[in-house]
């Protein structure tokens, strides 16, 4: 247990150090919130309509950017070899790495998501659901993205490969979460979409580590 705690602390510190943390999250959203009006036009109604969805897409992209090197660095510097020589199962190690990645990047992004949505003109009453969806969705992005990062280990241009593997797996949470937000915005029942998002996240957290560990073992051998 103390090994898992030490690993979580180290991984979180490393992820925080290489572009995690609240300031980077806010800066990222500020950039998206600036780009979006330039791209789709600055009419308030149009922006308000796309605001919750834009926050979602930004979250997915940010997850993708930070996941790129999740296993690659440890693979290259030998950490992955040493981590396998411990009594901690590789599945747990992979789960801890994803969790740390989420703590350092996904969670700050989720907490900053309503700021971006409101800045773009979304209704403030959506804020609660925006945070809840971003917290759950970010967790799913981390664990599903970890599979792609582990599968592309050792490949040249691994980052691009990760994106191609991972983006299809990001589709369900975006549909469920985006659907829940759109429903709440137009006064329709939103709980079904939110529950499906929760189910997808639970499945990602439970099954992702098995796939990641298998992919890591394959890359090491």
């Amino acid at each position: 247990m103390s090994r898992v705690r030490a690993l979580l602390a180290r991984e979180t510190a490393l992820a925080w150090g290489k572009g995690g943390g609240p300031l980077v999250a806010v800066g990222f959203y500020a950039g998206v919130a600036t780009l979006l009006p330039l791209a789709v036009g600055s009419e308030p109604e149009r922006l308000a309509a796309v605001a919750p969805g834009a926050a979602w897409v930004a979250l997915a992209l940010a997850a993708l950017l930070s996941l790129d090197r999740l296993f690659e660095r440890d693979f290259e510097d030998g950490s992955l070899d040493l981590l396998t020589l411990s009594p901690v199962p590789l599945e747990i190690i992979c789960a801890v790495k994803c969790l740390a990645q989420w703590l350092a990047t996904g969670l700050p992004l989720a907490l900053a998501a309503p700021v971006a949505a409101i800045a773009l003109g979304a209704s403030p009453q959506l804020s609660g659901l925006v945070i809840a969806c971003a917290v759950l969705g970010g967790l799913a992005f981390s664990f599903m993205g970890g599979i792609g990062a582990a599968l592309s280990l050792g490949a040249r241009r691994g980052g691009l490969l990760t994106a191609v593997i991972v983006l299809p797996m990001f589709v369900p949470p975006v549909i469920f979460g985006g659907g829940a937000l759109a429903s709440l915005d137009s006064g329709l029942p939103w709980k079904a979409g939110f529950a499906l998002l929760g189910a997808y996240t639970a499945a990602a957290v439970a099954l992702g580590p098995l796939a990641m560990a298998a992919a890591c073992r394959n890359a090491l051998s």
Partner: protein
Amino acid sequence: MIPEVSIQSLALSRGGRQLFSRLILRLSPGEAVALTGRNGAGKTSLLRAIAGLIAPDEGQIAFGGVEPAEAREAMHLLGHLDGLKSSRTARDELSFWTGFAGGAGDAPEVAAARLDLLPLLDLEVRRLSAGQRRRLALARLLAAPRPLWLLDEPLSPLDAEWRGRFGKIMGEHLASGGMILAAVHDPLPLNARTVEIGR
């Protein structure tokens, strides 16, 4: 913890090319073996196979009745890939890896003192020279005692003085019943049986 390492008619291949076959090797407590062979002969691969990272084509690697998963907790693997993160301090990295390998208490400081690393502990790993970095990786072996040391070119970045001092450390490890399997190009600074890999 591991009574012996016994390798029976082992064959390994990497990338579709067979490195060696019918390798037989036996290592008992208190014994050191220097693996030699040309570049690409499979010395590193053999060490990784013993650590369970590569599956052999044929043959067995046995640890005197101990299950491989359990035996893995009784070995240190030290290669040119040392798992040290350049953005973290030497102290953080040493205590993390010591803890992860099952060492506890003030073992990291004691090991660091033994390897003259105390003044360097608060530096980031990126500030260390290649030799200092290798000493930091070696400190892990002392801080978390495990009987089997699998060393891949352990001496290469060390200067003459440190080669001698590390030879003494290895001698103490053997005297306490440890086992050492080292892939080397230069002779080890202690009495070791030499096994040539390939051809």
